């Protein structure tokens, strides 16, 4: 039992990896952004999730997902009160701020520091689902079902029901 969750957290650590090379998109930053991103932090359980970055770039402005690190002031008033102009960070991927294991050890204690402002930053899995599903449900467009994004891996070596989401039906 313990090993499963250990494996799971290890799997989570391997995140956004393949950047499929393509034409740079014309953005406000004039910076090369990937057209497709494969999110495969749960690759031990599911096939990676292919995220069409270019498509989303045409729907939404950078700040709606990248908060204040993409060179524009954040759309969220809770961020923009401090991050007024926004910074152009070298690393803008989700996992560099949203931790894969948000409820472990030192972070819990660090959050008790009275001067800390960011006490409620979601973990990586929470950030993805809240952001993706939040928009897809609100706009009633885009995939929302579990298997719409997460193709189940057919792996016999997996313990039954390891995904923690669905009863194994096979």
């Amino acid at each position, binding site marked *: 039992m313990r090993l499963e969750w250990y494996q799971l957290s290890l799997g989570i650590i391997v995140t956004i990896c393949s950047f499929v090379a393509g034409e740079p998109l014309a953005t406000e930053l004039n910076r090369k952004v990937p057209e497709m991103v494969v999110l495969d932090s749960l690759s031990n359980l599911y096939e990676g999730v292919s995220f069409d970055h270019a498509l989303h770039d045409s729907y939404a402005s950078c700040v709606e997902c990248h908060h204040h690190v993409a060179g524009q002031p954040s759309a969220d008033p809770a961020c923009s009160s401090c991050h007024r102009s926004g910074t152009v960070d070298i690393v803008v991927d989700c996992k560099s701020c949203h931790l894969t294991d*948000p409820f472990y050890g030192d972070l819990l204690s660090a959050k008790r520091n009275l001067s800390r402002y960011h006490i409620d930053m979601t973990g990586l899995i*929470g950030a993805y689902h809240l952001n993706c599903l939040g928009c897809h*449900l609100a706009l009633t467009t885009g995939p929302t079902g579990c298997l719409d994004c997460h193709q189940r891996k057919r792996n016999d070596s997996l313990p039954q029901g390891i995904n923690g989401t669905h009863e194994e039906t096979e």
Partner: protein
Amino acid sequence: MKEETRRGTTFTRRSLLKGMVAAVATAISMRPSRDSSAHDFHGYDSNRGVLVDLTRCIGCRSCEVACSQEHGLAPPDGMLENYQPLEPQYRETRRPDHQAFTVVNQYQSPLYDHPLFKKTQCNHCLEPACLTACFVNAYTKTPEGAVIYNESVCVGCRTCMVACPFSIPAFRYDSAFDAQIMKCNFCFDTRLSKGRPPACVEACPMEALTFGYRDELLKIARKRLRDLPGRYHREIYGEFEAGGTSWLYLSPVPFEEAGFDTRVPRQPILHFVKDFLAVVPMVLTIWPGLFAGIYLLAKSNKTADNTTSKEDKSDETIER
């Protein structure tokens, strides 16, 4: 003989009076300290908890599956293969029982545009009523905040089931020789004691469950209420309920709309038990006289019900 007794009585009375004065003095001097230790206990500083945010929960029941796996229970039934968020997977309102320590129920509120989902499990009270009620001390409140149960000392009286304001402890009836109470233990043995979050928290894709120190979770909850006004009903369920619980809840609608029991008193149940126990001796002293009086009254009415003076007399007799 008579004198001897009287002397003896005088002697005893004097010493008794002395003793009483001393006892009263001690009681008075001890009172504040006893009060501060018993009434002002607001949980361990190291008390962990979970903040449940109903605005984030999509009803996927991943937490139910993770919980049953963690505790070697049968997987919950009725799970959908390709679950669509906010889609109800059942109709009836379920309770946690000996086969499932946690359940997620669906509630429809006219104040909200889509179904609400509420996860129910043991709330791990700061001053647990189950613990107070159990006379063999089968329950322990750990410094980490978990309320855990020891089946080896449990005698199966089920007082804890009655005492719990949230009706959480469940009794396993299926095995006559190994009957025991079953409830969420905050994953204490396998996770909490090792500094790991409970299984349900780790499985939740929406981070509807936030694990942390309870005092920190209250700050996080207040931050959400402040940062996202309009999204939440402006209260935290569990901050004061039953004297405060480790599991805290935020809801977009008033709590009774989402299946919460808002009649749960805000003081620890312990205080009510104390009051109740104080009432018992009073009952024992007053009731026999009261009922004897009613009995005599009825009897006198039956034998001679023509005069009021007789009734008055009988009343007097009782009073004497």
